[in-house]
């Protein structure tokens, strides 16, 4: 370790730059990945156009489960965008030690995730051609409207912040301006996660969603999944020779990952107790999660959280390999949480009066997929999986293109 460090310190910055440039940026591997991502993204867009023309009937969403995979992914990607805030703006705002110059990469990952979150809302809409109405007829009492505003602000601030960081590193920007900007980036990031939670948490119609805890809980889940994504990206880029980073930074981030996991599970415990303690209908919610149809998603989340904490808090396990596993498990855990939240909101009807169902039947392919999880009120259709893979590929395309074209590599000056 010590030898490696001293060797790398002896190399000049330019040398390092050129070596890693040879190894990655101009390499054909990256280019092939970009092309593959672009092709899948185009296929996804084609599927989306099909969904618009033939109808959302091709999804498995229906009147009693009116949101599905798209908004599950929306929640997930809003959370995943938190990485830039932890790695970059928080250290700068509070003047604490950063994580070795990976702030720009982290901010770019955040920008890509935010763009994907917006994309998932768009593919869920029945009338994307009417999006202009959000400006013309904005109803300011709608949490969805608030979220659209803060997401836009967050996206703009993130881009400006990235640009300002680059300027600062080139010696042309002021550090005060950058620090002020990082304060706004931090505030808008916290608001993005909270307001996204409010889309659900303010709905008194759904027992599963209606809790004041949902806002802070979304922030903790976002910190967890966002940091996990940055860890995976950084470890992979380090392995690929794109950037150099002292392993101590990765270890420090892993400890933080464990802390965020603990906070997230603590919130979960608080919420379960508050729901279950009075008995009544809240106990139904707890049973749905722990022993009911959502139990697989609940227990995967809990077990993934425990494994993450074991890896994060055991010094001998805290190596890049296990850390990447813990990070991947963290993202799986938050995905499970998002699935619980979405399906759980629809699974228990307020008025248990069967008799008349409205709306079209599931399509053939949709029914085949729904049969896989027949106990759930909703399971995505093939089309929904296709569009989702397409949108995620669009994000991968953005991410890889940015890594190749933008000057995101760490510089000496922090």
């Amino acid at each position, binding site marked *: 370790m010590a030898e490696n460090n001293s060797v790398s310190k002896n190399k000049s910055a330019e040398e390092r730059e050129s070596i890693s440039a040879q190894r990655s940026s101009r390499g054909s591997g990256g280019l092939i990945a970009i092309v593959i991502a672009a092709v899948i993204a185009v296929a996804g867009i084609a599927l989306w156009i099909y969904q*618009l023309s*033939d*109808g*959302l*009937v091709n*999804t498995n*969403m*229906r*009147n*009693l489960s*009116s*949101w599905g995979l798209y908004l599950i992914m929306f929640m997930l990607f809003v959370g995943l965008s938190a990485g830039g805030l932890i790695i970059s703006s928080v250290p700068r705002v509070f003047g604490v030690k950063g994580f070795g110059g990976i702030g720009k990469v982290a901010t770019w990952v955040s920008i890509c995730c935010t763009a994907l979150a917006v994309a998932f*809302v768009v593919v*869920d*809409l*029945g*009338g*994307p051609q*009417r*999006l202009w*109405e*959000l400006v013309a*007829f*904005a*109803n300011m*009492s*709608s*949490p*969805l*409207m608030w979220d*659209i505003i803060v997401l836009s602000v967050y996206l703009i601030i993130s881009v400006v912040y990235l640009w300002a960081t680059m300027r600062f590193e080139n010696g042309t920007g002021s550090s005060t301006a950058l620090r002020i900007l990082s304060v706004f980036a931090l505030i808008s990031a916290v608001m993005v996660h909270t307001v996204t939670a409010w*889309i*659900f948490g303010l*709905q*008194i*119609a*759904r027992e599963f969603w209606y809790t004041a805890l949902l806002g802070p809980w979304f922030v903790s889940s976002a910190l967890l999944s966002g940091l996990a994504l940055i860890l995976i990206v950084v470890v992979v880029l380090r392995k690929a020779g794109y950037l150099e980073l002292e392993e101590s930074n990765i270890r420090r981030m892993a400890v933080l990952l464990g802390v965020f996991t603990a906070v997230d599970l603590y919130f979960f415990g608080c919420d379960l107790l508050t729901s279950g303690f009075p008995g009544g209908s809240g106990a139904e919610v707890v049973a749905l999660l722990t022993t009911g149809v959502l139990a697989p998603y609940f227990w995967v989340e809990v077990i993934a959280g425990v494994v993450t904490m074991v890896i994060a808090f055991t010094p001998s396990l805290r190596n890049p390999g296990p850390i990447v596993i813990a990070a991947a498990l963290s993202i799986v855990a938050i995905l499970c949480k998002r699935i619980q939240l979405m399906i759980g*909101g629809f699974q228990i*009807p*307020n*008025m248990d*009066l*069967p*008799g*008349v*169902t*409205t*709306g*079209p039947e599931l399509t053939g392919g949709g029914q085949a997929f729904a049969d896989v999880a027949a106990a759930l009120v909703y399971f995505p259709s093939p089309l929904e999986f296709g569009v989702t893979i397409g949108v995620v590929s669009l994000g991968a395309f953005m991410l890889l293109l940015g890594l190749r074209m933008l000057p995101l590599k760490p510089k000496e000056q922090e």
Partner: protein
Amino acid sequence: MRLGMVIDTRRCFGCQTCAVACKSANNLPNNNWWNRVLTEGGENMDCPAGDYEKGYSLTFLPTSCQHCDNPACTRACPVGATSKREDGVVFQDYDKCIGCRMCVAACPYNGVRIFNWEEPEYYLDFALGDKDIPAHQKHVVEKCTFCAHRLAQGKTPACMVLCPARARFWGDLDDPESEVSKLINKRKYKQLLTDRGTNPSVYYLV
């Protein structure tokens, strides 16, 4: 003014005539029912609650948009496509709806808000209902509007007209002299899901 409806569940015998009257007056697409007569306790439509030992009972709950005095949907809609009018009617504007289905998630009364998941199709080759109803659209949310087009002509909603049991009553809940106000003063009633604080303008006499 707060237009509202009182439904006498002791009179309703589940004939579904109001559901069909609604379907026909509003030219509803296939599989869309703005007004559904639900069966309390039973597994299926017209299926009684109870068992052989304790005996059976058959009670019906005609359910449509509750036109809440404090609606959850209008607050949630990002573009104001659903809004509460001066007369208390919760209205739905198809031309504004962006199809986000936030209102469906926000409404506690499962199933009253209906999204057109595909291009509306009809069993008949010709349009039913009144000529001044707005055309149904793909990918927008629709629901009972208390037959806003009939109200504009000074008529009552279509479901009121044909009820063979005369179980439905219509009027201004703000007017103490109206038939509906008198009924809910005199008789025992319930509103649906009062714990959600929405204060529905549809009352059920029990």
